[in-house]
């Protein structure tokens, strides 16, 4: 179990995995909205309809991969920390967004090969999904930039050395993971 958890935390890579994978849905789904809108204009015609379809699929595939890595990162946060609650909201919103884009994809499945523009309902779903996604991604960013989740997790030995060389008071060597 532990090797799997370490793998999902990105220890082998020296970089947390969740924020890497999260780039894909975060780009693809707002991108799908852009392509949906361009298809109405009409710019690109069926190429935009298809591009939007491919973007949603790619985003879904990456979101499914990103979910377990996010869950593992979140489970490492203590429940009494403010970041735990933010993580919970972040996760709930992501679940909603993923479901919305899954439905969105299903609605396009029959028509994307021929249609020259995206229908109203999938377009609306892209817009709502993108809006919720932006909120959720902002919360994810807050976890890093406000609360330092995953920051100096893998580099703490290096920083400890620099602090020791700089004459700092140090905590005892064996730190509990947090």
């Amino acid at each position, binding site marked *: 179990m532990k090797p799997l958890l370490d793998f999902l935390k990105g220890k082998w890579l020296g970089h947390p995995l969740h924020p890497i994978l999260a780039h894909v849905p975060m780009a693809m789904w707002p991108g799908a909205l852009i392509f949906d809108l361009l298809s109405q204009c009409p710019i690109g015609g069926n190429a935009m309809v298809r591009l939007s379809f491919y973007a949603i699929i790619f985003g879904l595939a990456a979101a499914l991969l990103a979910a377990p890595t996010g869950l593992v990162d979140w489970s490492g946060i203590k429940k009494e920390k403010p970041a735990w609650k933010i993580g919970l909201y972040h996760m709930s919103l992501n679940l909603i967004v993923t479901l919305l884009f899954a439905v969105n994809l299903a609605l396009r499945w029959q028509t994307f090969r021929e249609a020259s523009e995206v229908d109203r309902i999938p377009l609306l779903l892209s817009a709502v999904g993108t809006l919720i996604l932006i909120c959720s991604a902002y919360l994810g960013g807050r976890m890093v*930039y406000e609360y330092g989740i995953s920051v100096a997790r893998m580099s703490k030995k290096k920083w400890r050395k620099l602090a020791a060389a700089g004459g700092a008071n140090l905590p005892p060597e064996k730190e509990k993971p947090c």
Partner: protein
Amino acid sequence: MLKDLLEGKPLWHPIHPMLVHFPIGFLVLSFLLDLFSLAFPEAPNLVRCSFYAMLLGVVTALLAAVPGFVDYSDIRHDHPGKAIATRHMTLNLMVVAIYGLNLWLRSSALTESQINLVPLFLSFIGIGLLSASGYLGGRLVYDEGIAVGRHKRKTPTPQDTLHLSTGYAAKDGETTFVSVPNAEHLRNGETLRVEIDKQVMTIARIENELYAFQEFCTHRFGPLSEGSFHGHNVQCPWHNSGFDVRTGKVTNGPAKVDLKTFKVETRDGQVGVLITKEHDQKT
């Protein structure tokens, strides 16, 4: 101020890492569509789709570059992350140049059913460099703590470390006065990062008084010279540990160990700190 805006301080979140999702996502999508065009030549429009994805990727990359340059310029010159940031920026400039050329090569063959080998090869190289660069960008945040907690600080952070010396080899336990002329010019909430014979410290002005304490937080060793001040507390930018600058005592976790503090004095009209030579300890 424009710099604060581009650093995302009003949003409490840096702008550059928000925008980079788009070039990374769209350029990878473009490469996947290229590969699909080779695998499924009967599917129409894949080459055209790939071109549009790439175009959007390049446009958003140029947008992301602007706050990126600002973030880069704000990293302290002797920060261990500065060299990584330089590599990250260089790679990104190369990626943009390669994709600019790539777009130009493709623009005349949008109706083909399979992508040509030269633009495909350029995309392959581009994705390789982009992955390396994105990885380095992530390391800047997660290892080096660049831009973490930056929005909490209201004043500019030190651009350099001030290197000073006691000027002679003090004996163990001997206390020496070292004058720090720059400290006098500090305004409230501003800091200096000072290194005196390997002892690294922050000197801060709070409510018109100067205080000196160790630079490194006692939790994960974040830079207190880039911290924010709340009354007489300094807050670490990374995980929000708080310390009373007068005593060094922990006022807020996760840190558990107090800071080392140094006395600030004025002697013969010169501001300086008192530094005591310690036994050389192995840590």
